[in-house]
């Protein structure tokens, strides 16, 4: 494929800065990914898929610096019994991590799983490759080629203790690339938690294969370091009667692009992906979601809510593609912004593409301010204007937060947002 000279140069300039790790079995997949990356080129402003988000800083050969935020908050999920895996600026921290063993699953690290017969050999990069059509996702191909570490989780049973990936950010110039593979056997269950700012610049891919009747829960928060940048991808494939639920809370961060690519391939499967973000000032948050229905009687929900103030920008690009034969599809998509002033901006591109004739798909997108009637109602009960505004902001985010299955985690997410709102009172 012929690429314009500038794009080629940008792609090669970035590749020149990176080193492909030598991890035996993943060599072929990495070489393949590099080939695909070179063929598609890194994103640039002219790309339709990057119309609302400038990729410049994500594709700069050297990551722009990001100050480390002095965080005195209680660590997230502190009260949850979980298996902790810690990465500091993208580097595994064995001392801070738990033993990578648990009932019903095996966990290995991408950097150290060297066996040539590894299950991940045919898995690593596979869902990412599938997710490159119909829309190219070059940063994900770059990740597959150059990821330095990550976890390879094989789930064979019902795992009650969540796996918690903790990303610490200590160096203001760190540039981290992590790639996780999660393979869920039929009937298995797993919850994955992710939190932390990770690095000055973070490129992360998570591939999740949810086999028939398996259940995958994912709760993620993207930390509050103001200057950090992140480009993340989730690629999920769902088998029959499986359930996939992913929720992300994003607070601060100068630039975040979260892509989620879901393919429902087995009948009666259900995929929910939700996001809540709160941004104040220099904040650009992009949720790009692509859900493909390729089986009968599946349900999907996309629920994205953004609270924006002081010039913060929110982007939503969400698509539901219903393939021919995917009858009885129930697709739902909502993207909404709460603009707390007139300087903030929300850009939404909801899309439906349907090739089956017996489906129910709905989508909606709104931008609005705080409801004056509700505000007066709360104030008339003695609640101050600031506190009432916070309550109504939490109320606005509720539909997204309610996608989290665990009540304990929902409460924790809500209290995080409440604390953020306290700190960011006008």
């Amino acid at each position, binding site marked *: 494929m012929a690429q314009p000279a500038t794009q080629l140069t940008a792609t090669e300039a970035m590749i020149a800065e990176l080193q492909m790790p030598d991890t035996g079995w993943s060599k072929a997949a990495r070489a393949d990914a590099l080939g695909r990356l070179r063929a598609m080129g890194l994103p640039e402003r002219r790309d339709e898929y990057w119309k609302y988000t400038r990729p410049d800083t994500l594709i700069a050969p050297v990551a722009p610096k990001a100050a480390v935020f002095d965080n005195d908050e209680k660590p997230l999920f502190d009260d949850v019994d979980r298996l902790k895996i810690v990465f500091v600026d993208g580097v595994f921290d064995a001392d801070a991590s738990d033993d990578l063993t648990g009932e019903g699953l095996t966990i290995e690290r991408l950097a150290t799983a060297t066996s040539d017969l590894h299950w991940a050999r045919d898995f690593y990069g596979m869902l990412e490759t599938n997710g490159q059509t119909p829309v190219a996702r070059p940063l994900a191909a770059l990740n597959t080629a150059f990821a330095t570490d990550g976890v390879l989780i094989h789930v064979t049973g019902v795992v009650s203790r969540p796996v918690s990936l903790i990303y610490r950010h200590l160096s203001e110039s760190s540039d981290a690339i992590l790639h996780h593979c999660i393979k869920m056997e039929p009937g298995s269950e797993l919850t994955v938690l992710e939190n932390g700012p990770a690095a000055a610049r973070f490129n992360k891919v998570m591939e999740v294969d949810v086999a028939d009747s398996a259940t995958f829960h994912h709760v993620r928060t993207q930390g509050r370091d103001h200057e950090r940048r992140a480009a993340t991808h989730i690629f999920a494939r769902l088998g029959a009667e499986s359930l996939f639920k992913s929720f992300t809370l994003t607070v601060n961060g100068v630039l975040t692009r979260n892509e989620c690519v879901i393919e429902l391939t087995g009948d009666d499967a259900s995929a929910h992906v939700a996001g809540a973000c709160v941004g104040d000032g220099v904040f650009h948050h992009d949720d790009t979601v692509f859900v493909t229905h390729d089986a009968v009687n599946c349900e999907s929900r996309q629920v994205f809510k953004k609270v924006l103030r002081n010039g913060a920008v929110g982007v939503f690009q969400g698509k539901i593609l219903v393939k021919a034969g995917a009858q009885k599809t129930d697709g739902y998509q909502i993207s909404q912004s709460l603009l707390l002033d007139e300087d903030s901006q929300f850009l939404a591109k909801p899309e439906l593409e349907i090739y089956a004739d017996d489906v129910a798909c709905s989508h909606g997108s709104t931008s609005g301010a705080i409801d004056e009637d509700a505000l007066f*109602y709360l104030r008339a*009960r003695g609640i101050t204007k600031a506190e009432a505004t916070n309550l109504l902001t939490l109320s606005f985010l*509720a539909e997204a937060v309610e996608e989290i299955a665990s009540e304990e985690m929902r409460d924790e997410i809500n209290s995080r947002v409440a604390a953020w709102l306290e700190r960011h009172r006008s």
Partner: protein
Amino acid sequence: MLSIKNLNVKLEEEDKIILKGVDLEVEAGKVHAIMGPNGSGKSTLSYVLSGKGGYEVTGGSAELEGKDLLEMEPEDRAAAGLFLAFQYPVEIPGVGNMTFLRTAVNAQRKSRGEEEMSAAEFLKVVRAKAKDLKIDADMLKRPVNMGFSGGEKKRNEILQMAMLEPKMCILDETDSGLDVDAMKLVADGVNALRSEGRAFLVITHYQRLLDHIKPDVVHIMADGRIVKTGGPELALEVENNGYADILAEVA
């Protein structure tokens, strides 16, 4: 308790005058009722007193125990002891009724320099008061007014009033949308709160609510003014003859 003198109010965005010199004195321990035809300015009066935006006071005054209400923010009026039971209570998704109640109670306490109520104490009090109003645990747990019937919303207003223990309670057409049983329940809730130190201003179209909440004084409002004041018999006169006679008489 509540002292309104020559209150003149227009809509902020239009040149429409709604209140044209309202005079009203409500004493502590008394129940006053305001009746009047549609568009007479009854609801506007309740909104202006509680501080809703969109109105401009062009003259006159309104004081609660000598404090100038019109200068205060809505939340400060509430903390000073004013309460408005809304005609149309607002639905607030995602905020639990209990959270809302506790936030309100503690916000008012804080504003008055009192200690906040502990979670356990709050729970105990709210459960007892909810029971009297036949508000079950599910209604307390659900988001504020979400999925509540008309009657449930009005009972929820009275529960808020019971929890906040205001000095001056304004009930804006609390009877609208209520069946007989629900009206009785709401009226019982209000009557239980009647006391020496508390006053009520009950705004209604119909006399029937006043069968249950017996007023001491009845005012008739028309065209932005209080045109007639009398005892409970005035409400009966309205019930029997409509407003036309009274309006003709004062015209």
